[in-house]
């Protein structure tokens, strides 16, 4: 009976010990992925921002500019791309909608971002775009990979349509979460006019004919929870200028937008709560279960060996080796 129990415990011990690394190194990289049907919104605000009044073509200070960002996973498009890419793909249709203090649209920039669901590496397929312009992304955008490392990453900037490093600048505490702080500075760069302009009748083509160009610089800051790779907070010190041309009436440049863009408080709380919950799920596969199973396996192995040893041990004096019989001639 003890022998049988010992063998069952041995099988369970091997099961647990084998499952531990299999979960961490085989199952986790295959199971942890961004769902294809993700839908999320984000509201950012720039208080006391500078905004261009297109009527008078002068910059004025406004109490608030709001940016509404939506990311929506297109499941059908991702399944179509997966058939040729041979890996799990996520297709995000995004919209950055900027609204002035009067509720009117300042700009809206749509984009399509296609990436590997597990690694967040960009996947190049038809439809990848920013504001209607076909792009070929390198690096990450919006989200870092699971198990983010303390190093610089390549980050895609949708305004300039280019990729540049975003620098790891230390570990911080953000509302009880350990986060990695990343920062990227995009220097003044000439960028395209948005396809949708805030004033009816004005198009990028009509602005281009005046010789006026749009320039942009930003300092992008992200606080990233490293287990999930999800930013829990973000800020941008963003400036845009119109330069040269006849549109400015002889002035060299005019500020189109300048502001310190921050996430709205209720969205910060919501994001932190979601990330904390997802963090637990990732830790379950990367730490809690592997370490727990390994310890359980060791415990079961000890128990199995103990039972085996007891099964082999003689039961008591009755079973003791019989005393040698006296030798008689």
């Amino acid at each position: 009976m003890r022998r049988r129990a010992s063998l069952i415990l041995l099988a369970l011990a091997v099961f647990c010990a084998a499952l531990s690394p299999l979960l961490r190194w085989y199952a986790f990289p295959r199971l942890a992925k961004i769902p294809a049907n993700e839908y999320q919104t984000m509201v950012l605000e720039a208080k006391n921002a500078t905004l261009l009044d297109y009527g008078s073509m002068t910059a004025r200070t406004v109490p608030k500019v709001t940016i509404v960002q939506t990311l929506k996973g297109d499941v059908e498009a991702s399944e179509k791309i997966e058939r040729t890419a041979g890996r799990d793909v996520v297709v995000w249709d995004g919209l950055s909608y900027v609204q002035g203090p009067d509720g009117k649209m300042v700009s809206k920039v749509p984009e399509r971002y296609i990436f590997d669901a597990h690694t967040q590496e960009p996947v190049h397929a038809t439809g990848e775009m920013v504001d209607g312009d076909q792009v070929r992304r390198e690096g990450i955008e919006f989200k870092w990979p699971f198990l983010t490392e303390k190093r610089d990453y390549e980050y895609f900037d949708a305004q300039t349509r280019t990729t540049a490093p975003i620098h790891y600048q230390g570990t911080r505490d953000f509302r009880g979460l350990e986060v990695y702080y990343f920062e990227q500075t995009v220097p003044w760069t000439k960028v395209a006019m948005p396809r949708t302009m805030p004033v009816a009748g004005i198009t990028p083509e009509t602005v281009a004919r005046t010789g006026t160009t749009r320039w942009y610089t930003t300092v992008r800051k992200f606080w990233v929870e490293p287990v999930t790779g999800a930013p829990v907070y973000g800020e941008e010190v963003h400036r845009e200028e119109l330069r040269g041309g006849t549109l400015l009436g002889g002035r060299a440049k005019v500020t189109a937008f300048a502001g310190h863009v921050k996430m709205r408080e209720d969205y910060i709380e919501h994001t932190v709560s979601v990330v904390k919950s997802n963090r637990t799920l990732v830790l379950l596969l990367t730490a809690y279960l592997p370490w727990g199973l390994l310890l359980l396996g060791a415990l079961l192995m000890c128990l199995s060996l103990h039972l085996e040893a007891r099964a082999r041990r003689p039961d008591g004096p009755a079973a003791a080796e019989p005393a040698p019989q006296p030798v008689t001639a």
Partner: protein
Amino acid sequence: MRALIAAATGLAVALALVLTLTAIGAPAGKTSPKPLLTTVPAHP
């Protein structure tokens, strides 16, 4: 010999479980019917 068989059984079951889990994966679901927002939402 019986110990070897027990250990191999444990290993095989662990492998089968992990392979099944990863093969099943998570369902992709459906594209959300919600629109890309052009208004400021009151809350998340």
